[in-house]
């Protein structure tokens, strides 16, 4: 399987079909004489920034820390937690148990104060 093409940048959904983001990065295990093996998927803007340039990754990381976002970012989904890889990557986790929706939850606290937010 061409891991990069099949997984990288695909949308990731949790076991209830809720969006967790996209596979912003992947961790590969490279053994002697064996094809690379998918070890984990990474989700989070820090990983995206790093892909463009390490310094952009550091900048995004500093911004996240300044905003007080949790230490569980970027989100790491282990290979064993992946249920299926198709048009989307479906994982066996629940988005609420990961840091993937931390920004969404933070903003929701503000959004629900406005009338008509339901």
């Amino acid at each position, binding site marked *: 399987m061409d891991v990069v093409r099949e997984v990288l*940048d695909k949308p990731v959904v949790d076991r209830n079909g809720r969006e967790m983001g996209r596979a912003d990065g992947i961790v590969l295990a490279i053994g002697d004489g064996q094809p690379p093996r998918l070890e984990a998927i990474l989700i989070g803007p820090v990983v995206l920034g790093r892909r463009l340039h390490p310094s952009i990754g550091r900048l995004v990381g500093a911004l996240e820390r300044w905003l007080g976002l949790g230490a569980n970012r970027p989100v790491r989904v282990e290979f064993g937690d992946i249920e299926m890889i198709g048009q989307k990557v479906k994982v066996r986790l629940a988005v609420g148990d990961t840091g993937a929706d931390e920004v969404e939850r933070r903003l929701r606290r503000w*959004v629900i104060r406005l009338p008509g937010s339901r």
Partner: protein
Amino acid sequence: MKKIFNLALGIVTSIGGFVEVGSISTAAQAGSEFGFSLLWAIAIASLFLAALAEMAGRIAAVGKRSMAAAVRERFGFHFQVIPLGAELIIDVLLLTAELGGAAIAVKMLTEIGFQWWILPIGLAVWLVIWLGNFSVIEDGVGLLGMVTLSFVVSAWRLHPQVASLAHGFIPTIPHHDLTRYAFLSVSIVGATVSPYLLNFYASGALEEKWTEQDLWVNRLTAYLGMGFGSTVAMGCLVTAAIVLGPQHIKVDSYEEAARMFVPVFGRWAVTLFALSLGIGCFGAAVEITLNAGYVLGQAFGWTWGIDKPRREVSRFVTALSVVLLLAVLIALSGWDPLQVTLISVALTVVIMPIIVLPFLVLMNEEEYVKGHTSGPIGNGLLAVLTILGAIMALIVIPLEIFGG
């Protein structure tokens, strides 16, 4: 029956959505300075827009992805960051221009300075999005947009000569001001083939859950809707050519452009022009704001959609609100809306090749369109547009300096 009704509605909304600050100002300038001779530019640009919209709709209906999503998945974030960044910058600039256009329209009706209207109009755009759903927004904008048919009525009533109209559809080299002519033709293409329209169209298809069964609706909506929409822009050009041209009025402001309605509509001229401009710009402002949320949500994999409860799409509504706020602030800082329009149109032309090139690949891959890949005509059209786009991108900056 319901399908036919939806189709008709889709076409009507495309007409209403077609007219906005860029198409009115470029068509008015082209008509007043070069008569009918730039009609071909509107025709070609509309054909390209229709073809691209149809393709974006096809990927949405068959591949269940918007352009922003498909580009990221097929080409990776490294590539996407360029069109994504460019589209966001253009979105903000164009939104600034649309807010300015709408504010000038209200100013024409009330005689109160346009700066005072930016904030209320921005707030109104936000409220429409916050309180509306997709069909309310699309149909409301589209139906109100029918007032822009005044341009067609006006052109009709001025009885343009059929022969000289037909001549306008054949590109010719003008006897004077060649750089200005080239600049305006490139501007018309940039104002017509807006990237926001494509992604908005595809996102609408996703919001309305189109399937492969809707492909014929998609084809008809794209071609007929954009086709009829282009007649409004052509109506504007023809009216400007007949009314403003002989008086040697160059359109430097929207107030001057409004004079084109005087011969046909008399004392209603300013009101009708202001309504056409105002509703066209307001509708476009709503669509551009929504599109900013769509593009970001799709690129980063957030939950998005205007038909979902706002609390479930907090990032989406926050993102589009921030973009709107940014545009309101720029508009308030006192930039001339007409200048901002021309800058965003030029930028659109510069990034055209990177917007079009992905289509050429995606439309030929079964992962995105299954068996509905493009035939030789579709591919040929895209290839022409890519090459044309690359040429225009190279010449637009010098043209902007010498012809603008």
